[in-house]
């Protein structure tokens, strides 16, 4: 999908194109640029906050904000705001002080470029939910961010083995039945019930102030926007 040309206006060139007496030119240009400042601002909103969605500091009650300062909403508020009246400790819900620049911190370009790559999904989940550690790669346990482990696919039939042999072991249940249990391998069960597992750091759960059950539900809503239908996923308890 092509984007409209008006987002690529070269304001300086447009202003310079107007031929006025040389002595007055700086003032005319300044006036024209002032008149076009609102267009420039829209252009900036589109490229930075709606297509790419720049990350700003989260709103902070102790910070003094000036006109034009931009912040991200706190916790799970996905909006980006711009200060329109100088203020301190005025929450972003107050429309007299804050203007909503964009409603979704996952930019349209980011959505358009998503093609089911694991790292893209990790980036989206971290951008959406993680405000305690890096939202950029690497995504793993040492980095302390949300990451995904693709589960290996094992044969669904295991040979019965005695004792605790590597292939598996049997657990008697009823006298007439035996259950075949997989050996624990690495981070997850060898015979996982899912195609991939999502790991969420405990610090993220604590920071957001939700219980893990509620946060899982919120993350699930987000993952379902991107997950390929037919792929199962699950969660590990917070690490």
């Amino acid at each position: 999908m092509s984007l409209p040309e008006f987002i690529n206006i070269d304001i300086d060139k447009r202003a310079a194109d107007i031929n006025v007496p040389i002595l007055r030119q700086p003032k005319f240009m300044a006036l024209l640029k002032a008149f076009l400042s609102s267009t420039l601002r829209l252009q900036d909103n589109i490229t930075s906050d709606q297509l790419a969605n720049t990350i700003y500091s989260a709103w902070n009650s102790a910070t003094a904000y000036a006109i034009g300062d931009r912040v991200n909403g706190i916790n799970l508020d996905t909006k980006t705001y711009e200060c329109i009246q100088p203020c301190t400790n005025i929450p972003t819900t107050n429309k007299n002080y804050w203007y909503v620049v964009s409603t979704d911190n996952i930019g349209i370009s980011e959505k358009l470029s998503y093609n089911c790559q694991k790292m893209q999904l990790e980036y989206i989940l971290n951008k959406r939910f993680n405000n305690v550690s890096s939202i950029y790669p690497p995504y793993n346990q040492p980095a302390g961010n949300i990451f995904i482990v693709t589960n290996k696919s094992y044969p669904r039939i295991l040979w019965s083995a005695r004792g605790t042999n590597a292939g598996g072991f049997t657990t008697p249940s009823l006298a007439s039945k035996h259950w075949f249990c997989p050996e624990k391998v690495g981070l997850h069960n060898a015979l996982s019930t899912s195609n991939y597992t999502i790991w969420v750091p405990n610090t993220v759960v604590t920071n957001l102030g939700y219980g893990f059950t509620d946060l899982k539900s919120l993350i699930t809503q987000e993952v379902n926007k991107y997950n390929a239908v037919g792929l199962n996923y699950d969660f590990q308890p917070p690490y």
Partner: protein
Amino acid sequence: MARSTATIKAGIMSTIAADPLLGSLLTSTSLTSLFGLMAYVMAACQNLLEQSWDDYLAQITTYSQNTPAASLNWVASQAFLFQYDPSGNSATNDLVILNNGALGYATVDPQFNIVTRCAAITIGNNNAQIKVAQAGSPGSIISGAAYTQLQSYFDAKGTAGINYEVVSYDADLLYLEGTVYYKTGFATVVQQNVVDALNLYLDTIAIYSIGSSEPIDYQGIIKVSEIVDAIKNADGVYDVLLSRISYRPATSTNVSDGTVIYDLTVANGNYLSGILLAGYAKQESISGKGWLDKLNFSAAL
């Protein structure tokens, strides 16, 4: 989020005031100043531009939501693009690799887009189930050659390695018990209003609605909270207290065969939502078990 003309003009005026060349020259506070008028004209044009952008933004946001390949929204959007031409015309029926490398039809003709309902769920590792229906009230089964062609369509369009099972069933049947309290003056119309509101809610599930400002439920999930909201939003309804909500597949014959998602007598263990077998639903059709049979209507005190 288009700004008002006044807000935009204030921004232009503050830019002028802050400019080192203009700030000391254009100091008039007159409401009829020439540069103020020009700023107003610019602001009015800018306001229209920002409104146009908002409309465009809504369109590309919808487009971007349907873009992630093989995602829920993508599957639904592809189902709504499926074409079945009963005449068997290969140009409108057969998928081909187009000149740009994309998979599509040689001739695109919306009159052959037969799918009107689509919901999809994961039913196991690498297994997807796609529930579809075609035009009807509220939908009807897709069968025969159209069904076979639709299954082939998803086999071709889907992700390699994932098994897509297309199913098409008659609508699930929604059963409700409870009491609706209505406002004074609505006694004669409130019942039909509630039925209309519930049908309106059911018609938001798994439908084709590109550009909708509200996300469409493409999982085919029915929720207690949304049923309550639908009834409360009906004209004349003061409040509602539901005591039992269940739904059953059309192949069953008794209400008791259904899945109960809410039972007021159960303290814990209510599911509060459920995945519809057909992906969409309509009013319970057993005589004496319909919404108006099992919902009591009482004047609010």
